[in-house]
């Protein structure tokens, strides 16, 4: 005999299913509101690229914000919404702000993006009472994500994401393939597809490749399509990086050759 309850649940349409998902979110480091308007920098950025951030999900990092009433979280969230962002959560919030966030329907994310653990906010009696964990006094650097290594050619249509780290390919990247990394991207071979480094917002990320033939390259959101890449760089070994707002593509020269030239 079947359990009637299960049958009822299974009857009709398929039941809702919970599953895991990973998303890349932009994080806004909110500065100390006593020193500056917390959103002035955001508004300036938005003027440069008005549509780029439209409906972009956003996590507010409140590390620098003291947990007092002087900072009005709900007002800040409201302002971000009018600017077109979709605030989804907060990080490194004090208990007061974390409670406000929950009331606003925002998720107080745990501060797992380490290096930003919140030693300053913890009253931290444990540091004194627990000599077994002296590292809390001086938190160790976050465990570095090992670089993701690709040794097979990445074919058209394939998308590879190196989460939280670098992406190293020792094989060609076909046109129509997509390499994405929070850190740097190295391609020891021809790069014919797309490469997006620093997608988490790291503006110091770079792209290195042995033979540039890319459809699109991007660092921390700044991009160039193939048509905007100087023809003289095509087929060359290059490095690509951000200088201010500009995406720079420099040929990688053999250092010995350059000294000889001098």
């Amino acid at each position, binding site marked *: 005999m079947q359990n009637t309850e299960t049958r009822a649940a299974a009857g009709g349409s398929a039941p809702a299913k919970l599953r895991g998902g990973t998303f890349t979110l932009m994080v806004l480091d909110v500065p100390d509101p006593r020193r500056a308007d917390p959103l002035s920098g955001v508004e300036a950025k938005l003027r440069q690229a008005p*549509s780029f951030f*439209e*409906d972009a999900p956003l996590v507010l990092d409140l590390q620098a914000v003291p947990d007092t009433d002087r900072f009005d979280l709900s007002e800040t969230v409201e302002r971000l919404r009018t600017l077109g962002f979709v605030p989804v959560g907060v990080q490194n919030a004090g208990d007061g702000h974390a409670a406000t966030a929950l009331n606003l329907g925002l998720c107080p994310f745990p501060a797992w993006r380490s290096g930003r653990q919140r030693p300053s906010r913890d009253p931290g009696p444990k540091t004194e009472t627990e000599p077994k964990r002296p590292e809390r006094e001086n938190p160790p650097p976050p465990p570095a994500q090992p670089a993701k290594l690709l040794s097979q050619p990445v074919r*058209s*249509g*394939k*998308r590879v994401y190196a989460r939280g780290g670098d992406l190293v390919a020792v094989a060609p990247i076909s*046109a*129509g*393939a*997509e390499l994405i990394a929070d850190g740097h991207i190295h391609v020891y071979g021809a790069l014919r597809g797309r490469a997006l480094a620093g997608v988490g917002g790291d503006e110091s990320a770079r792209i290195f490749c042995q033979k540039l033939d890319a*459809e*699109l390259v991007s660092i921390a959101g700044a*991009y160039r*399509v*193939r*048509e905007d890449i100087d023809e003289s760089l095509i087929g060359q070994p290059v490095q690509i990086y951000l200088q201010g707002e500009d995406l720079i593509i420099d040929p990688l020269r053999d250092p010995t050759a350059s000294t000889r030239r001098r």
Partner: protein
Amino acid sequence: MSKIIVMTSGKGGVGKTTSAAAFAAGLAQRGHKTVVVDFDVGLRNLDLVMGCERRVVFDFINVIHGEAKLSQALVKDKRIDNLFILPTSQTRDKDALNTKGIGEALERLREQFDYIVCDSPAGIEHGAVMALYYADEAIVVTNPEVSSVRDSDRILGVLQSKSKRAEEGADPVKEHLLLTRYDLDRVERGEMLAIDDVLEILSIPLLGVIPEDQAVLRASNLGQPVVMDNESQPGQAYGDAVGRFLGEDIPHRFIKREKKGLFGRMFRRSA
């Protein structure tokens, strides 16, 4: 009133993308604001045939999923005014297509364009059905051989049962036959079906016959719609087909052996 045209076939490799590119370019050349939309998600080719692959940033799937605006994804053709390309994604698959998202995107395209040409993927599954769902008119691309004709017959059945017009009981999708890769020599040798045989099986009106010609491959490799090559027979044949589609009365060309002397033949060979 803008029109949505689907370029479909069932079978692969018959020339849907070439025809979509040529047809859209032909419509735009005649002054109609036209966009050609790539529905072949994951096997993106239209941008190559249109020669705009170096300028693609966002795509149709980004638009459907609300990740980019239509204006960000539309690529303007540099050679022909009034012509735009909406490329598709290479890294996604056909499951990324849904009727709601496509419907909204097409509705917004209707506001801006006279003609929306949808380049369908091969097959009769989800991707092909999504491409034809909103169509007002369908151009069925067929090669003069039995398997292509059978697949075209199948896709005509899909058009008549799974399109929005069919579901809502509205006027049926208007059907046109475009016979491509027509090789007169092989037809004469009996290796290919003749036009009348195809028409008898499919019984839909003939929009055009495109002769098999090196010019098509050449144009694809150059990233230039073949209709822009006015010197070539396929270029002229696509131009005629566009004219007929717009209601002009143009006799079919390149479907009969022209009587030519020895010099004429030599000239034709070398051309």
